[in-house]
């Protein structure tokens, strides 16, 4: 008797679930993005706005940039919001991802123990700082997860002429927050995006030892999945979200996001920049007026190092 009641309960639950919107309609757009956009809370503000404006339902899958790009290229996601220009260029060249548009930037910082055993405070260049960390054998905690941050870190090691290997080099295999906590715990250096460092600041002893160097610009772009990636790619939906991110409305939201909580904005909107033949031109209207100290200033001008395929967009 009791068993049949139990079974009826299970069936009821099953019916309750069947009643909820389970299967995806073509009105669903899948966004694959890096964890920092979700962890900062920015998407919690932008996504509902997009859904209201467009009528689409957006599903955000927050993974590392490397995985987000793979999901987009495999046709599992319709649009990606990522921050690894070199990797993005590769997928663009393969024709898997289309119409790369800049959305916003913030910057990376080199955080480490306040005593600074490697002495990186004395230098201004990230590459030199990396060299000093390696030379002094100070501990460095890497994310090791193919994320955008990890991609930049590997590039800096390469530029520094260092093969990061050995007991001093730790790969956490985790997100930025967890990696910061490990670096804090082990008295190590780590490369972090500013937003996550801000969010964890309260709980960390780690100090920002280097910032403001040009390669530390953290540039977020939106890319649309090619309809040829698979029969179920919602290309129109992906394009709608990408266009929304660079719209005046979304850019205005990005500009002020974080001010309330941290007293400074976390991202600087830069939609509409044209980038041609490997260089990035500063926006016609200087956005960094509300940018925190240490952000690249317009007057200095800044450009991405390495080649970006020339790509024109409105």
């Amino acid at each position, binding site marked *: 008797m009791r068993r049949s009641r139990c079974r009826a309960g299970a069936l009821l639950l099953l019916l*309750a679930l069947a009643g909820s919107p389970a299967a995806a309609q073509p009105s669903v757009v899948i966004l694959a993005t890096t964890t920092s956009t*979700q962890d900062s809370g920015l998407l919690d503000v932008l*996504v509902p706005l997009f859904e209201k404006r467009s009528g689409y339902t957006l599903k955000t899958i927050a993974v590392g940039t490397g995985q987000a790009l793979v999901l987009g290229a*495999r046709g599992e996601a319709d649009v990606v919001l990522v921050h690894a220009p070199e990797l993005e260029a590769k997928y663009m060249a393969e024709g898997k991802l289309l119409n790369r548009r800049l959305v916003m930037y913030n910057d990376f910082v080199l955080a480490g123990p306040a005593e600074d055993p490697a002495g990186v405070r004395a230098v201004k260049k990230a590459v030199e700082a990396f060299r000093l960390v390696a030379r002094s054998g100070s501990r460095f905690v890497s994310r090791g997860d193919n994320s955008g941050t990890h991609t930049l870190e590997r590039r800096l090691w390469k530029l520094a002429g260092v093969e990061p290997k050995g007991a001093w080099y730790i790969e956490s295999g985790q*997100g930025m927050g967890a990696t910061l906590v490990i670096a804090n715990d082990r008295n190590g250096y780590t490369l972090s995006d500013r937003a996550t460092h801000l969010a964890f600041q309260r709980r960390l002893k780690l100090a920002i030892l280097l910032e403001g160097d040009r390669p530390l610009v953290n540039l977020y772009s939106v890319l649309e999945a090619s309809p040829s990636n698979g029969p179920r790619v919602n290309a129109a939906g992906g394009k709608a979200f990408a266009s929304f991110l660079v719209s005046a409305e979304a850019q205005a939201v990005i500009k002020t996001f974080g001010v309330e909580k941290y007293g400074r904005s976390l991202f600087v909107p830069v939609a509409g920049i044209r980038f041609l033949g490997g260089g990035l031109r500063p926006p016609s209207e200087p956005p960094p007026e509300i940018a925190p100290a240490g952000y690249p200033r317009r007057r200095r001008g800044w450009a991405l190092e390495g080649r970006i395929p020339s790509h024109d967009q409105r």
Partner: protein
Amino acid sequence: MELIWEGMAQALRLILTGDPEVLGITWLSLQVSGVATGISLLVGIPLGSLIALTRFAGRSFVVSLINTGMGLPPVVVGLFVSIFLWRSGPLGFLELLYTPTAIVIAQFVIAAPIVTGLTLAAVQQIPPQFRLQMLALGASRVQLVWMLLREARLPMLAAVMAGFGGVISEGGASMMVGGNIRGQTRVLTTATVLETGKGNFDLAIALSVLLLVITFLVNWALTWIQQRRRPS
């Protein structure tokens, strides 16, 4: 230590104020894990009983498979279910990935071997004389199985608890196949991972406390059912 008290206080606050987002996440957790456990029972009890009561070639191999399945790592299940449900996967046309149904599927794969294995063990431990006696008293096959299940109900409630406990506390598979989408597939475990990633440790602790309290309450209710008619 201070952080833990903060978390506890926040958990209490969230429960008392009935924060709609936390309530939604909690309800979805219960719903998904409840349905997954329910379906596992529908499949696992008959299957476990069948294997317990029959002898066939390769039986010990099947039993070993089930016993291995009882320890399936949730992330492995998450990975394989994801691959099947991907748009490019064999079941992609169903468009189930990143829905609560996908989490139910993954959790079912995790819970079904647990329920099957524990049912198997429960039915098998009934002395064979009991079966002979029932048959001698003229019981039909259906009646026999029914009596056996009644006899094994105490350990089988343990199967329910183990299955439910296994899936509601699991985060890896839910994250992979559900995607932790706000308002759609965010459950207590994946919300805890997210809040930890955000550095909101107090909220993460609060969600963990909530998860523990719910798991305890469900198990308490089941234990009460299990123990109330225990022959003393």
